[in-house]
């Protein structure tokens, strides 16, 4: 469909249109030195001229004099927490005076949510989370309720960080699909393209002028430059064979010496889905909440089974994470579990770089 042009001041009109349509709006904001996603009512809340300098174990924001809102790559989280909640009650058990137990559903109705500023890598990760939570044997009703009500305003990435490698995984920097509206940022406004009927209905209310050839070229050029500026890459989009052929590679031991097994990488990874379940019993004993919360394969408890911890050291845990993410995912989801966002590199306290580790393990002599 035709691409429209929205002047910068029109961004508030887009927000107002979404709010009027009943959406709660979430967007990126600069807080505590990072880009975070939170409730957004005013365009002024968006970052302005913010650049993120990311490197292994490092994330710093610099404010430039650019008037643009999206001159950064990403923050520690984007869409994942809004669909796969970090913590939520799956059901509640109530014990009555006669000691019978009653199980109560806790699934609430979800309200429509619009997220502004999703990146191409976030959309690719969302597609994988959809596959996991919705398309398996048992769809998750909590995820489904929120997913059904999600409206996505993507923004093509023109300023990737040094840690980004979405071009190598094939997931960015242009948002190709999976959005309701996609924006391409220019110095004086946005190119607007709708990707769904819901998106088209919102765009229709914005009274956009048509984008000019020059504007289209400018956005295209910036996305192309964004892809070219990326220096990191994975050795291949399918490392399944290479990883499982190298389960005894000495590199696993070397990376385990650096890895703190803290689980930061899995927390910031937009595709990691592991969660635990536990009970929060009321002090009076009258009820107990069955809670699910994010878990990580880097914890001691993740592989615990009747007295035995299957992955009892960091070596086995790092190998588990990487061989699943870049290996077994191909069997389970038809592609790698990595979308090239680079978050695990920047937010790793010791700066372990997934591209470097995968490169070292998959290249050269086999160690099976």
């Amino acid at each position, binding site marked *: 469909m035709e691409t429209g042009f929205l002047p910068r001041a029109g961004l508030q009109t887009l927000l107002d249109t979404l709010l009027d349509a009943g959406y709660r709006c979430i967007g990126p904001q600069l807080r505590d030195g990072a880009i975070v996603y939170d409730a957004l009512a005013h365009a002024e809340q968006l970052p302005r001229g913010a650049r993120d300098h990311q490197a292994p174990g490092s994330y710093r924001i610099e404010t430039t004099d650019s008037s643009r809102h999206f001159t950064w790559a990403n923050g520690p989280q984007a869409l994942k927490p809004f669909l796969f909640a970090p913590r939520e009650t799956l059901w509640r058990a109530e014990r009555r005076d006669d000691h019978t137990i009653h*199980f109560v*559903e806790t699934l609430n109705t979800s309200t429509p949510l619009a997220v502004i500023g999703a990146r191409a890598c976030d959309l690719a990760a969302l597609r994988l989370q959809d596959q996991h939570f919705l398309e*398996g044997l*048992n769809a998750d009703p*909590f995820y489904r309720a929120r997913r059904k009500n999600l409206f996505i305003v993507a923004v093509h990435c023109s300023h990737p960080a040094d840690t980004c490698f979405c071009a190598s995984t094939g997931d960015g920097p242009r948002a190709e699909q999976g959005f309701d509206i996609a924006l391409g940022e220019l110095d004086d406004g946005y190119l607007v393209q709708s990707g769904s009927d819901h998106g088209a209905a919102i765009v229709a209310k914005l009274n956009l002028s048509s984008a000019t050839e020059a504007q289209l070229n400018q956005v295209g050029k910036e996305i192309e430059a964004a892809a070219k500026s990326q220096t990191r890459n994975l050795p291949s989009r399918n490392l399944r064979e290479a990883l499982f052929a190298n389960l005894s590679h000495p590199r696993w031991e070397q990376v385990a010496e650096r890895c703190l097994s803290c689980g930061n990488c899995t927390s910031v990874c937009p595709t990691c889905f592991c969660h635990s379940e536990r009970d929060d019993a009321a002090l009076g004993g009258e009820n107990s909440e069955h809670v699910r919360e994010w*878990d990580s394969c880097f914890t001691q408890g993740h592989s615990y*089974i009747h007295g035995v911890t*299957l992955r009892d050291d960091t070596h086995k845990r790092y190998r588990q994470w990487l061989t699943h993410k870049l290996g077994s995912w191909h069997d389970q989801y038809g592609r790698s579990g990595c979308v090239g966002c680079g978050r695990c590199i920047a937010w790793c306290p010791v700066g372990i770089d997934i591209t470097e580790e995968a490169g070292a393990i998959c290249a050269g002599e086999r160690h099976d």
Partner: protein
Amino acid sequence: MTSPQLPWEAEVVEHVQESPTIFTLRLRFTDPEQHAAYRFAPGQFNMLYLYGVGEVPISIVSDPEDVQLFDHTIRAVGRVTQGLAKLEAGDRLGIRGPYGKGWPLELAEDRDIMIVTGGLGCAPVVSVINYIMRRRDRFRRLVIMQGVKHTDDLIWHSQYEHWSEQPETQVLVAADQGTALWPWHVGHVTDLFDQVKIDFGTALAMMCGPEGLMKAAADQLLPRGMKEEHLFLSMERSMKCAVGLCGHCQRGSHFVCKDGPVFSFADLKPLFGVRGF
């Protein structure tokens, strides 16, 4: 929609103490409609919820045609199972299930069958032995092989003696450490494979227990001509959700809770015996 993870209330009808640490809970759903609708296959498991404490996956040990009650044989080892051990007749708990794929009983018909189990993990195969005994004419020779560390670890002693007296049935039991009056072999269970009388080329094996033992058994059976697709193993992994979502039981290309817990050796082979998977 209803959450697929919402348990149903069940009542303990009987608590049977099998050994100092192993017990069987005989259960019934308190909702008669749910009880009437409940169906399972041998080798499948339920999630048992102890009020206020949490859930554990436990295989169903009773016969699928016993419609009055369903049984779980449990070893008290962790927080939840030690609490379940204290439940008595009339107490309530939560049950959801059944989950997973059970034993390949149709494929097993008209074949010799070999059951191998070790340690205390015998409950899933005891269900299948009882299943076969009750439908004896559908199956050919049955060899039951069990290895334990100590003679005390063999629960259901009299049942093994009873099975050994049945026609076309061979019972081979071994304890690593013997005691007085122990009627079976002292030593490793893998010493006994030469005594097994079945047609290995067409026979089907079902195993559960420690992976080391299952690997040792596979190393005996495959060279004797058993097919990898006829060798089935029940796997145990950490499980929180039992519906393929929580990620704890992921092993290679499978989630053990929904793709298993029973797998053919052919499916497990790529990572079998590799520590950490």
